[in-house]
């Protein structure tokens, strides 16, 4: 088949654009929905109207954010069909199910109770209103479950078989798809990172109020709840991050090698805590991958295999093979893959011509190399390597920030418990740090997304289906136009969102009695 790489790259760019925009708003929705539920629970328990005002204020910001999250989300689901129709056909039998379940069970929960949450204050009982707020939080996070089941399956395809008759993958074990260990670790890591980001968001706005000397009581109360939630969730993010990295090491060793900048595999491998990559480094050459680096001995072996003395393969081992370690290189996989692709084509043609003997023979040959089929579409062995620099820096930025956040929340909680947040000295260091923390959280969020998706390249379905054969047979100009349409409208809406949010923050909570 002819592959239009221009179309593939524009489709890639469009998916990255829409997903990254969507990912600005979604983590905030995941966490802020729970924070609103916490605030309202305190109000219902204490009956204190100030907590109600505080809840309503955060709900207003939640609503503004939620709307644009919904707007940027609809295109993602349908983009699988519009730009990636070959993908939709080849894996739709498995991939479609979690998306449909997300619609049935998560979106309706959100949509139904969202109306009560915003307009039901005087229409339903206090307890039913609180229940609705909780349902919005549950619905939002349930949505994350299903989309991450789908994404987890792309990273670690399980529970399916390839059916040569239909030339697609078909599900044969739904439980394996749902309880895919990558999906489980992705969900817990991603949703808790959303809680963390929302806590930072609350921290940022509350710090601004404290610096300005406005709405002090509300800001202090918000900080206490956000610090507790943030400390718990950021600690959990670190814990699940470790599990997530372990899953990557076990299922996607090439991704791990890329995010660590590891070219030559090592036993007792150290982890690079910080470092600058050598931009002239190419796979297979003898140059040092790093200009400078700080390492933690044994840590990568421990993280990847839970064993200090284990071998962690590098990019060169995985690409060119390492006999000593029993690692097959990409070249023989490509050879076998091309055989599989050719035999499948012969099989399909023979079927069309009703030549059963030829069909049977080609099918048998296809099955010999079936598992390498995806490699048959790669032209060079280096094509199997994801972009190293982007993956490496994104991963290290995420980890560095992820390590910083628990400390930040702990310090805020410490001063909040001592009721010392209004101390003048804090205005010089802690409050400004809190002020920029949401921005740092956003950087960490987007970096995490880059690690997951750029590190998956060149595969749409890891090891089975390359991105470049997943696209729609469509002239690149169409995707270019829609790319700029989305870029324009999303940027415009983001600008509107930020302006509205800033205005609402400057107005502050309404003092209702």
């Amino acid at each position, binding site marked *: 088949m002819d592959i239009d790489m221009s179309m593939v790259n524009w489709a890639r760019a469009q998916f990255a654009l829409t997903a990254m925009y969507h990912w600005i708003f979604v983590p905030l929705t995941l966490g802020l929905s729970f924070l609103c539920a916490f605030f309202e629970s305190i109000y219902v328990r204490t009956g204190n109207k100030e907590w109600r005002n505080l809840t309503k204020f955060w709900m207003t910001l939640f*609503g503004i954010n939620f709307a644009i999250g919904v707007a940027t989300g*609809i295109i993602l689901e349908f983009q699988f069909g519009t*730009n990636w129709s070959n993908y939709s056909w080849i894996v739709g039998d498995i991939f479609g199910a979690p*998306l449909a379940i997300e619609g049935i069970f998560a*979106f309706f929960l959100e949509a139904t109770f969202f109306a009560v949450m915003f307009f039901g204050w*005087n229409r339903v009982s206090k307890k039913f209103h609180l229940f609705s707020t909780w349902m919005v939080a549950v619905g939002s996070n349930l949505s994350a479950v299903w989309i991450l089941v789908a994404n987890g399956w792309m990273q670690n395809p399980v529970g399916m078989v390839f059916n040569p008759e239909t030339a697609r993958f078909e599900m044969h074990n739904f439980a394996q798809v749902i309880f895919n260990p990558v999906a489980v670790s992705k969900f817990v890591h991603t949703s808790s990172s959303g809680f963390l980001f929302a806590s930072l968001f609350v921290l940022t706005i509350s710090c601004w109020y404290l610096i300005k000397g406005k709405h002090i009581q509300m800001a202090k109360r918000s900080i206490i709840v956000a610090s507790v939630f943030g400390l718990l969730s950021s600690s959990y993010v670190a814990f699940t991050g470790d599990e997530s990295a372990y899953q990557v090491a076990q299922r996607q060793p090439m991704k791990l090698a890329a995010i660590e900048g590891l070219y030559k595999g090592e036993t007792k491998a150290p982890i690079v805590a910080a470092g600058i990559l050598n931009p002239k480094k190419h796979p297979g050459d003898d140059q040092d991958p790093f200009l400078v680096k700080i390492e933690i001995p044994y840590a990568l072996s421990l993280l990847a295999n839970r064993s200090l003395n284990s071998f962690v393969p590098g990019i060169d081992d995985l690409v060119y093979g390492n006999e000593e370690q029993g690692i097959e290189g990409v070249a023989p996989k490509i050879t076998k893959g091309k055989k599989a692709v050719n035999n499948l084509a012969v099989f399909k043609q023979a079927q069309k011509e009703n030549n059963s003997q030829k069909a049977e023979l080609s099918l048998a040959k296809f099955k010999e190399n079936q598992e390498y089929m995806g490699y048959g579409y790669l032209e060079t062995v280096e094509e199997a390597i994801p972009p190293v620099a982007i993956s490496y820096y994104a991963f290290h930025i995420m980890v560095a920030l992820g390590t910083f956040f628990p400390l930040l929340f702990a310090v805020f909680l410490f001063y909040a418990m001592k009721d010392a947040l209004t101390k003048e000295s804090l205005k010089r260091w802690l409050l400004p740090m809190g002020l920029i923390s949401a921005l740092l959280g956003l950087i960490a969020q987007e970096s995490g997304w880059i690690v997951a998706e750029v590190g998956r390249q060149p595969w749409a379905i890891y090891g089975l289906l390359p991105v470049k054969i997943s696209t729609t*047979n469509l002239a690149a100009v169409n995707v270019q136009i829609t790319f700029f349409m989305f870029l324009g409208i999303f940027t415009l809406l983001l600008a509107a969102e930020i302006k509205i949010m800033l205005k609402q923050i400057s107005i502050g909570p309404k003092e209702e009695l």
Partner: protein
Amino acid sequence: MISNFDYATLQQLWWIICSIIGALFLFLTLVQGGQTLLWQVAKTDLEKSLVITSLGRKWKMPFTTLVLFGGALFAAFPKFYATSFGGAYWVWMLILFSFIIQAVSYEYRKKPGNLLGPKVYELFLFINGSVGVLLIGAAVGTFYTGSNFTLDLFNRVTWDYTLMGINLRGLEAAFSLFNLSLGIFLVFNARILGALYLLNSIDLSSIPDLESRLRKNVLTSFLIALPFLLYVLISILLMKGFSVDNTGIISLVSFKYLSNLLSMPHLLVLLVLGILLVVYGVISTSYKQSNKGIWFSGLGTFFVGLVVLCLPAFNNTAFYPSKLDLQSSLTIYNASSSMYTLTTMTYVAIGIPFVLAYVVYVWKLMDSKKLTKEEVINDESY
């Protein structure tokens, strides 16, 4: 029991489930219809707020139903999802674009510092209600009129309809009088439903002008929709259809859809009942001053939608026909997921009635009191 269903039963069941979701969406286009009425029926800021707030409490329902419609088709009929969304690229992209701009408009329209001003957000709502619904109608119309695609051995879609050297990728659907008529009918039907819904949900006792404008609009929208509906219905009865024989060969057969209706009399009954209910909703509102028309016209729209989606799919008919290569046409049997996936999804679908139950419960709870002027002034509003 579900595990004993045969493959064909599951395929048919899933087409019915998708059709129910699609028909529910058509009922819920009351929100889109209401959006197109805004400038016509609401003359003051307060009236606008009432209309937008009333619709705004429901805007996520059609949106979510549309997303579910897409998701269900993806899960149950992935070949259709891939062929239609990838092939008729521009129709779907423009539909999606109209829903993107809708999603923020309610929340942002009245908020201070909204960058674009309320009029632009109102325009977004109008575009969603008019262009969005029109194109959905045109896309559904292609179930009857066919599309310009071929599928290769690996089911990769090639779309081929050029105008002045440009491949229109589905936009040509709007050039068919049938597709266009279906689209226009849906736009005006949505306006009927929108006006009926607003009459039902807003306390209009102190704003008689708004009430009379809404009642007037029910009738005028109906009178505009009627010729398009009649054209669509007569065309369906007379047109050739895409029939599948026992060996799977697809051919054009005269009066196919008429024959489908006669072979499936329950669809004929639903169609007649649906039209009568829509008409009754309009008449009871326009001449008997009823405020309950939405339930009759809404149910009627649901029935008509169900028939429109089921008629081209059952009785050995290709529901997504190709005009370029008849044998590339999609049927519910060659476009579906595997038996395992359909069985699994059927177990999942047991949850749908529970979802519907809480949606209805909360809808009733929230709409038990009509929306008043005072509420819009004093409480949360759009």
